[in-house]
């Protein structure tokens, strides 16, 4: 098994799927000749040609619309939104067309499209290059949403998304591209959509999260171990549909739960996770359900102190975890 960066795992998944199935193609802004602004699609143009690594105009609505149409016609497009911040012009296509076509056509049509979009801040990107739009799409039945944290899951979930019969939004964290690495099998495997994963076993507190902030959680858990606090960490991996059984099982282990994500707190994925726990597990809770999320500020500040304030880091996470453990 090779150790590789998060971004390489994503690229490998696309390469393998394109080799496996001729109907798979990528499209997006600069994904072809340039190989993507983050180099995510690098080499695909050379290997598969311009018709399978398609450079599009700067029009996200068109990228999504073309991909949705191609998917309904039997192709397996992987549409890239250069930054998830640019995804909103395509929101109507995604929510009103892709998500609903199976229902609307009484099962006659389906839309096996994958839409990849880099989320998250921490790259001095400010307003237009840092957003986490999960909550915009989260409450839309008909969409599946995945947000991998480990490179292993990044590859396995992307391959599962390509093979899924329905639209999947694939939120990759741009800060994680080269920061997170790990072992990734070089053979064919998928990570089932809808299944969470226990990253660490523990019995004092349960931390539930997804994507990049889990790195801080893992680091903090390591350090808190020295203080005698043992943390149980659950990586949701799939946001829609949430793995309810895994969430409840993880919370049942400790009775104390902290939910963490970078997207802002109000109306985020954590709110739904929290509601599920409150609905199902009231009598097994030992502390109030806690959340640590981005602040309800309109946008990621571009100035470094502001960005630092906005973003989670190991220390913020550690403090929240300790407070919960001490409760």
């Amino acid at each position: 098994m090779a150790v590789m960066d998060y971004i390489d795992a994503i690229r490998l998944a696309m390469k393998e799927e394109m080799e496996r199935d001729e109907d798979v193609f990528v499209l997006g802004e600069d994904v072809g000749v340039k190989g993507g602004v983050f180099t995510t699609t690098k080499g695909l143009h050379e290997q598969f040609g311009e018709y399978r690594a398609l450079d599009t105009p700067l029009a996200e609505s068109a990228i999504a619309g073309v991909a949705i149409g191609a998917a309904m016609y039997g192709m397996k497009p992987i549409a890239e939104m250069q930054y998830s911040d640019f995804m909103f012009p395509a929101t109507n296509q995604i929510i009103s067309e892709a998500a609903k076509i199976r229902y609307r056509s009484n099962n006659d049509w389906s839309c096996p499209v994958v839409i990849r979009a880099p989320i998250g801040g921490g790259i001095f990107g400010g307003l237009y290059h840092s957003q986490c739009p999960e909550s915009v799409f989260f409450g839309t039945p008909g969409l599946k949403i995945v947000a991998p944290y480990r490179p292993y899951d990044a590859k396995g979930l992307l391959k599962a998304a390509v093979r899924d019969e329905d639209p999947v939004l694939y939120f990759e964290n741009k800060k994680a591209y080269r920061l997170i690495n790990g072992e990734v099998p070089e053979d064919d495997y998928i990570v089932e959509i809808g299944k969470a994963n226990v990253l660490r076993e523990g019995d004092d507190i349960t931390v539930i999260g997804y994507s990049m902030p889990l790195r801080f959680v893992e680091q903090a858990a390591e350090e808190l171990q020295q203080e005698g606090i043992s943390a149980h960490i659950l990586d949701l991996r799939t946001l829609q549909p949430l793995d309810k059984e895994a969430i409840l099982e993880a919370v049942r282990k400790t009775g104390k739960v902290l939910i963490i994500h970078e997207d802002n707190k109000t109306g985020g994925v954590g709110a739904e996770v929290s509601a599920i726990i409150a609905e199902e597990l009231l009598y097994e809770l030992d502390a109030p359900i806690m959340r640590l999320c981005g602040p309800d500020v309109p946008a990621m500040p571009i100035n470094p102190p502001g960005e630092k304030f906005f973003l989670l880091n190991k220390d913020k996470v550690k403090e929240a975890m300790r407070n919960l453990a001490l409760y």
Partner: protein
Amino acid sequence: MNKSIMEIVVPQLAESLVNATIDKWLKQPGDMVDIYEPICEIVTDKVNAELPSTVSGKLVKILVGNGETVPVGTPVCLIETESAEASMPQQAPQAPSVNAGASVQPAASTLLSEDAPMRGRFSPAVQQLAAEHGVRLADVPGTGLGGRITRKDVLAYVASGAHKNNAAHAAPAAPASMDPVVQVRSSGIHLSETPRIPKIEIESAAPGRGETFIDVTPIRNTIARNMRQSVSEIPHAWTMIEVDVTNLVILRNKLKDEFMKREGINLTYLAFLLKAVVNAIKDFPIMNSTWAVDKIIVKRDINISLAVGTEDSVLTPVIKNADHKNVAGLAKEIDELARKTREGKLTLSDMQGGTFTVNNTGSFGSILSYPIINYPQAAILTFESIVKRPVVINDMIAVRSMANLCLSLDHRILDGVICGRFLQRVKDNLESFTIESKLY
């Protein structure tokens, strides 16, 4: 003046940059550095750059050597400054350690005391565990915030076996108001997602056996209402005539293939019949009228309602101004309306304004029918099956193609004489089609 040590860290030089390699140190320990003066060269995936000092002072220690790769934010060297306000690298205040074993210590049963304000607040998990194991919570030491008894405190207490000793003198094992018999809900809407299907009551089998109930659809209801209104208000009379359509059959057989080729639709007998009926109505306009109690309204436009049956209903779409159309035009109109009816695409305007109804009952094999007038019109005519029959012509028997035309009439408006003449005119019109007749 205070001397203090500052750390210089690897800065974030570009988007998505996470680590950097020290290429070469430009300063050595003991060297003085000015603020913004380069202290080393660094190499990253994206850029190579000189790393400037963020303070001025004396370089005291290099933490990362040449060629080493470290994450962004890692201190690479320490610089001693003389600034009074610069501070030592912050030592994080040591957090109070959570000792997992502490709870086992048989702490004196501290009930609500001033330094333990949370002592009497029990979480649902604690209450449930206490009830389950028969633990008296007053005996359990609390290690949580404000002396709160945590779930783990109860588990540790149970594991220590202390509660069994207490059980001897403290028989009632219900410290909190939890009833251990009540099953805690461990499933709910999120676990059992199958949507509830509304339960439909089936009529009990015993008395109504052999009967089923069919809901009356809106269209069925409309048909029922119109039919009842027609038969209860209109005094119906009925008459029938026999028509020799042998020549028409020959004519149609001659034209139908070419018509199909040219127009893409069937040339039906009905089109010829409509032409014959419309021309007869022109001669007897009273057929095209409505009873209005103190007067009879004769309609100038001849709009033929055409009865079109479907599996479960019958509709009467209208051919407007049928007298302006030739046989080919009528055939097209019939085809169009029949198609729209079958596909359920009739519009309101297709259904309005009829003045006389024709029903092609022959299409389902009938040779005789007694139609109900399409209220409020004055008459309805049916076109029955064309059948070959022996017929006496000039005292000789011939095999001819014969069809019956039946007419129901509103006897308030029409009488036998006028209807007889009308039918006779229809018959003449039909029989006057010859092999030479033109469609257009």
